[in-house]
């Protein structure tokens, strides 16, 4: 590690060195200590008036006596700390970010600007409803777009992310069965599903059973038919599925499920591949969550927040969670408690009424694209993925070579056999070449899976640059069969990132989860 060498003197006077850990750097890349290590134990970056000396003398022994142990810094120090940290992140705004199943598309800044209008950002969830009619109208318009795009009659806006949407859908399904006195036990889920599917089904009290997959990456109808029965509450199928393929027999899958008295939950994480082109409501779906942070471009923010509204069929609509948005003579209203026809609804899944900040962004995105633009979104996303598949298929092994893929191209690690290079090594080498790696080792049904999702917001030039890099790396990987140096380079990668490979075993064996 070298010290900061930008500027003069290049060898700092040792007598000037402070006692605390010193940030070092290489070029623009700063080594930044934790906020707890910057010495700010008495500082603050916020100017507040002096409270009265006796401001808390009514609270007696409720008052915290011991120090909390929180550092603070002035505003310039705080900004510099977090800007330095920011520069250690890859981001969509830097380069293509082809994480399959995650849909890293451009996040329009107009959406951010609209979400920050005081009329949206500075309204309290429990203000009198007469004072938030614009917000409720926006929720209704968003609902209208979601219902129209999916061909479904109802939508529940409260869920806060995709997995929360799955929870909403399965809670509604369970409530619908219970309303008929028909307690069911099992939920069928393909092995290729997102981990959230089985986790959600188990959370809702169901036993989870795998559905087999065919050689061409789809649900095995025979296996599904054999496993369906009077105790199956639902099937959870992702479409397009996590192999990036459209489930050709989707209508038959729905028919089989319905014939067994089960509901069809569709994981809508990949709705971006078909938005404006195909409506899930025409495929027999009973419930589907829509990740507004995927299809409708609300930012992923390093892991959220998301939003996961769930569209519902007529059969499930009465079982939607509270609150419900209704219109009467006085305008829009959130019905937060209801007696009568909805007494079977499962209740509330979180405080208030959903991720309004995400609704504004998603609605802004929808208006910007329009019906025509959204269909183009799906077409370009699918075209980009197929183009990548076509450009790489002679060097890498497409998991399902026959026919087109949808919005993501899936490769196995078969082509790496005999090289000693693993999917992980290949992914880390991509980092050194300036791109974020693809999703690796998912879906579980494909060995050493590499799932590449370019999205529609990449130019042909950027995709060609990415394909050129991958082809070059693939050839290097293949050369590792005979060239130990090439193999060593893959094992050492990355060497140009802020850090080299991290010891995840150590992290799990001796968890250090906070500064101390």
């Amino acid at each position, binding site marked *: 590690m070298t010290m900061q060498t930008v500027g003069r003197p290049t060898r700092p006077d040792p007598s000037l060195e402070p006692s605390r850990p010193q940030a070092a750097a290489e070029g623009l890349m700063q080594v930044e200590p*934790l906020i707890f290590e910057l010495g700010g*134990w008495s500082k603050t970056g916020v100017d*507040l008036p002096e*409270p009265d000396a006796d*401001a*808390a003398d009514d609270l007696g022994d*409720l*008052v*915290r006596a011991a120090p*909390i142990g*929180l550092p*603070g*810094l002035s*505003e310039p120090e705080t*900004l510099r700390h*977090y800007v330095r*940290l920011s520069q250690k*992140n*890859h981001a969509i*705004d830097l380069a293509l*970010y082809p994480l399959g199943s995650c849909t890293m598309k451009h996040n329009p800044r107009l959406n951010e*600007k609209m979400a920050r209008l005081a009329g949206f*950002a*500075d*309204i*309290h*969830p*429990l203000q009198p409803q007469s004072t938030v009619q614009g917000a409720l109208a926006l929720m209704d318009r968003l609902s209208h777009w979601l219902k129209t795009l999916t061909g479904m009659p109802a939508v529940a806006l409260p869920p806060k*992310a995709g997995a929360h949407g799955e929870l909403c859908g399965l809670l509604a399904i369970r409530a619908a069965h219970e309303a008929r006195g028909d307690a069911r036990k099992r939920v069928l889920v393909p092995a290729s599903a*997102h981990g*959230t599917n089985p*986790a959600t089904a188990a959370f809702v*009290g169901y036993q989870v059973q795998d559905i087999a997959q065919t050689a061409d990456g789809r649900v095995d109808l025979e296996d599904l038919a054999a496993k369906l029965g009077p105790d199956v509450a639902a099937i959870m199928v992702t479409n397009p599925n996590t192999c990036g393929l459209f489930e050709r027999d989707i209508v038959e899958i729905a028919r089989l499920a319905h014939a067994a008295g089960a509901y069809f939950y569709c994981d809508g994480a990949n709705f971006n591949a*078909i938005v404006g082109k*195909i*409506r899930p409501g025409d495929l027999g779906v009973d419930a589907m969550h829509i990740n507004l942070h995927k299809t409708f471009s609300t*930012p992923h*923010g*390093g*892991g959220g*927040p998301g939003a996961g509204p769930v569209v519902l069929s007529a059969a499930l609509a009465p079982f939607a969670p509270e609150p419900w948005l209704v219109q009467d003579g006085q305008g829009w209203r959130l019905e937060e408690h209801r007696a009568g026809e909805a007494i079977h609804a499962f*209740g509330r*899944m*979180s*405080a*208030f009424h959903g991720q309004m900040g995400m609704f504004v962004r998603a609605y802004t995105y929808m208006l910007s694209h*329009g019906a*025509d*633009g959204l269909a183009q979104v799906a077409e370009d996303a699918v*075209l980009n993925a197929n183009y990548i598949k076509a450009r790489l298929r002679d060097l890498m092994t497409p998991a399902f070579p026959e026919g087109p893929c949808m919005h993501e191209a899936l490769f196995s690690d078969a082509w790496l056999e005999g090289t000693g290079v693993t999917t992980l090594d290949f992914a880390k080498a991509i*980092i050194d070449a300036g791109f974020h790696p693809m999703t690796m080792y998912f879906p579980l049904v494909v060995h050493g899976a590499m799932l590449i999702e370019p999205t529609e917001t990449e130019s042909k030039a950027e995709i060609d640059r990415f394909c050129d890099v991958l082809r070059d790396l693939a050839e290097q990987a293949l050369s590792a069969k005979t060239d130990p140096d090439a193999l060593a380079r893959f094992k050492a990668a990355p060497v140009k*990132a802020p*850090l080299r490979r*991290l*010891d*995840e075993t150590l992290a*799990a064996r001796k*968890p250090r*989860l*906070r500064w101390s």
Partner: protein
Amino acid sequence: MRYLPLTPEDRAVMLAAVGARHIDELFADAPACARLSGPVDLPQHQGELEVERELSALASMNRPAGAGPSFCGAGAYRHHVPASVDHIIQRSEFLTSYTPYQPEIAQGTLQALFEFQSQVAALTGMDVANASMYDGSTACAEAVMMAARVTGRAKAVLSGGLHPHYAASAETLAHVSGIETSRLAPAVDGEAAVIDAIDQHTACVVVQTPNVFGQATDVSAIAEAAHAQGALLVVVTTEAVSYGLLKSPGEMGADIAVAEGQSIGNGLNFGGPYVGLFAAREKFVRQMPGRLCGETVDADGRRGFVLTLSTREQHIRREKATSNICTNSGLCALAFTVHMSLLGEAGLRRLALLNHQKARTLKSALAGVPGVQVLTTRFFNELAIRLPVAAAPVVEYMAEHGVLAGVPYSRLDPGAGLDNLLLVAVTETTTSSDIDVLAKSLSEVLA
């Protein structure tokens, strides 16, 4: 369309490379009957200017809390957020990155999460905190599920001071998990009533301080009673700024502390997105839900951070995971951490004192309004008051006259028969003149 870089020429070249004559060939796996022949029945694309016009028109139909006196709380609080917080969370590198699955190029997000976890653990007085939940209410529901896993028991007692939305969210999950919940009757100063409901089958008791009525409680005795029966104590807080003044859940014996973190770094946003805080004793860490960021070293021995203990999580453990949560509230957690770093301990303590001081002013002012009875005795920044008439129409009337007077308790819990109760909150953003206006107009309405 301004967000789509492909030109018609690009598309033609790419289709040829793929070996398709028409884009529709790539959608051929979809049943023909389900493929739309034309655009859905929605408007066509629009430019920024037109979109901005529609959104601005909708925004202008809402009354921002900051446009006049506002006393709404009940789980969401309007605090001042420094300008630099919003600047940092709009940095592309934070805004447009994913969950940090490739730690070598996500150290910015990971280190910020480690700082977040460290701050939350310190604030709550607990050993460990996770990298955030969706919000306080879902964190509370997850805490009940976790307590059942830890104890192997299936009963939860919810206090009468627990925010009704939190109680309802916990009940929803508990119901489908076979956990029996008993929710005590609403009571302003009734957290300790849970003690009588604890038995040897109790997995946890859930109490809130300050509770939904604003009442702050030392829950140490509840902790002792719960532990004596082998049950866990879950302490809920909906106003995170109160941590700057009041004893922490950890100091009072909590096993799990959950909170709504919105008050620090995040705006009201009509209820979301917010950020759930989730902290626990170290011995329970492997039963915690959600992401955890941990310290480790890289191949050169340099310190770095990774997501860890992921064998608890859905992407590894599938149906045996501790929770189904995947996406959480990363960017809201970052906002929390930046604001917290700006405040520091000195700033947070001062901020908390100012909030409390304003609440004492509020209490004096309301006590002078004929017919109003202040019910909350020990409070942080929120009070429950009883009006001589139903609160909801009073609030509606006052809103028409420019004052957001607070949250009628009946809005949260309509069946409780507490229609005359009004929850009134202040923060550092409330001015003395706001409080004067509230007292004066309340006097007029009630006269």
